[in-house]
């Protein structure tokens, strides 16, 4: 649309005014006056842009979680400074633990979260995770090169998720049911493939350096999270594909009416989940050196929980990559605090459960405001 379009409209409005029986040119004036309102609305100052950014974060549900996360970190640091022995938070040992666990859950949460934005679920995420880890360790311990083992794991993860995507979109069965069935199927398949005993692997030094490097205060998994998080952020929030994912999850009928193919977009979202699952499985397998059938059980719920805590709407169409990562970080930080504080084991689940419900409640409020 040319810059003069407003003017053209105004002129012809005047010309045709008689036919449409507009008294005088109020509409014309309205157009002219209004013209500058929106076109000039783009924020010019730094603070203006910052406010705009924050409002966008808010709209995606990532602001509240960000604030809570920062407050929690401040609280932990203050507590640590007051009582470093009783609460060893800012210690190398503690950060090593956190920087191994948070990236894995965060990467899974990104996979699960993107799929939820697209309007679907994958309950077979945990079973897929186990199967990928088994494929990876078995190929590797059978003498395959690290690259082959990695490739096999990626192919496995993406294929399992792709199958879910095809069944869900082509057969038009709700993903909830398809993936519930597939969860049981792949759990069984893992036993069939591997037996009930754990598979061990001894990762080479290069492999350790790549997938679980020791960076002093942090572990290498954090690098993986930063790189993947950045790429997925670009894809979800800046790439056209991300726009389609939001559209399909937010209003599939509208997406279709505008010639976006919801099935295609959903299948891509399933594949993204598969990719994330495979990477998370590899990171875990290299770190632990042993994989057991059933080791991924329950991960699907934790990944979905992290996404929800991060502001992803369970009804689709709303969420952010930053929120998903923060959601995973928040859940694991709270667990960590409870552990450091010496709370008994059952408190962990209890608190995490409360956080999830509170987060879902928050999301509901945000959505209520927007509609």
């Amino acid at each position, binding site marked *: *649309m040319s810059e003069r379009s*407003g003017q053209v409209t105004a002129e012809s409005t005047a010309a045709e005014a008689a*036919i449409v029986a507009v008294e005088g040119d*109020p509409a014309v004036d309205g157009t002219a006056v209004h013209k500058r309102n*929106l076109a000039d609305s783009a924020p010019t100052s730094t603070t203006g842009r910052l406010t705009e950014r924050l409002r966008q974060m808010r709209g995606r549900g990532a602001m509240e979680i960000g604030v809570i996360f920062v407050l929690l970190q401040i609280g932990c640091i203050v507590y640590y400074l007051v009582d470093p022995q009783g609460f060893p938070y800012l210690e190398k040992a503690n950060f090593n633990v956190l920087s191994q666990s948070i990236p894995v859950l965060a990467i899974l949460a990104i996979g699960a979260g993107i799929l939820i934005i697209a309007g679907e679920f994958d309950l077979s995420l945990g079973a897929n995770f186990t199967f990928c880890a088994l494929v990876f360790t078995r190929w590797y311990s059978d003498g395959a090169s690290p690259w082959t083992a990695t490739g096999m794991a990626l192919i496995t993860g993406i294929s399992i998720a792709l199958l879910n995507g095809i069944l869900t979109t082509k057969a038009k069965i709700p993903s909830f049911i398809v993936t519930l069935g597939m969860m049981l199927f792949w759990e069984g398949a893992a036993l069939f493939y591997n037996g009930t005993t754990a598979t061990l692997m001894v990762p080479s030094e290069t492999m350790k350096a790549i997938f679980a490097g020791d960076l002093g205060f942090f572990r290498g998994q954090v690098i993986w999270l930063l790189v993947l998080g950045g790429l997925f952020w670009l894809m979800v929030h800046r790439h056209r594909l991300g726009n389609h994912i*939001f559209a399909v999850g937010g209003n599939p009928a509208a997406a279709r009416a*505008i010639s976006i193919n919801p099935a295609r977009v959903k299948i891509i979202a399933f594949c993204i989940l598969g990719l994330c699952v495979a990477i998370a499985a590899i990171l875990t397998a290299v770190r632990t050196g042993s994989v057991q059938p059933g080791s991924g059980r329950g991960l699907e719920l934790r990944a979905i929980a992290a996404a929800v805590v991060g502001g992803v709407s369970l009804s689709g169409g709303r969420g952010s990559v930053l929120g998903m990562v923060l959601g995973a970080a928040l859940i694991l930080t709270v667990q960590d605090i409870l552990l450091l504080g010496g709370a008994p084991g059952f408190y962990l689940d209890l608190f995490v459960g409360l956080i999830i419900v509170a987060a879902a409640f928050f999301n509901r409020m945000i959505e209520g405001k927007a509609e």
Partner: protein
Amino acid sequence: MSAIAPSAEPAGNGATTMSPTATEARTGEALLELSGITKQYGPNTVLDDVSFTIHQGEVVGLLGDNGAGKSTLVKTMSGVVLADEGEYLWRGEKLGTINRQETEKRGVETIFQDSALVPSMTITRNIFMGREITNPIGLMKIKKMNEIAAQILDSVVTIEGIKSPNQLVGSLSGGQQQAVAIARAVHFKRSLLILDEPTSALAVRATEALLNYLLQLKKEGVSSVLVTHNLHHAFQVCDRHIVMNHGRKILDVRREDTSVEELTAAVVEGPEGLRRHREGKPLA
């Protein structure tokens, strides 16, 4: 070029109840021609053997009571709904597959009655949904899209209260949402603009601006189909009126050959009312 001369096409005089003068030759080449369109939802025949032609540069009013099948017909024209039977001709050529991709290629844009917007996305992202402006690797040029979105929202429809193209559509009022849907269709239309009750949530001034815009489009050779319940609006801007009743086309008549009274009789009372009106009896 077009294999079908406007005066010879069957769709124009398909309806038996039609005014005889409507069969006269019309200016403008046939753009979209539907013939024998039938659509069933379960046991309900929602469209029953509907045929008509939209010519280039023509403003056509599509009228009828609630449930007459107007929106279904609109969706058929825009390729979102596939008819069970019937033909879809574009500039005289039969389309092999009819879907939204095909109609989009030909420059057809629709403002759907339910807006077809995503509440959880911004105005800009809604307007450019599926047609984002991107760099070669697909990353969106958000600033540029924002600028264009602001420009179109400022130009065609005059709606108060939209602060920024970054606002979420879900936070807008009904009229503002309608303005966004209009802006999107207006920006991408090239040959045919279909408007399904576009003014239902618009204020008087915005409605006038939109109706005027249709007249401007006509000058540019862009056709439009206007679905509305306001017969006065339709009568003011439309060159031709098609009245639907229970899935059938009962009237297809040029503005010169009809009156608001006749259209009212057809819309409100169907074929009965039309007959009564022609016999000169007053509305029952």
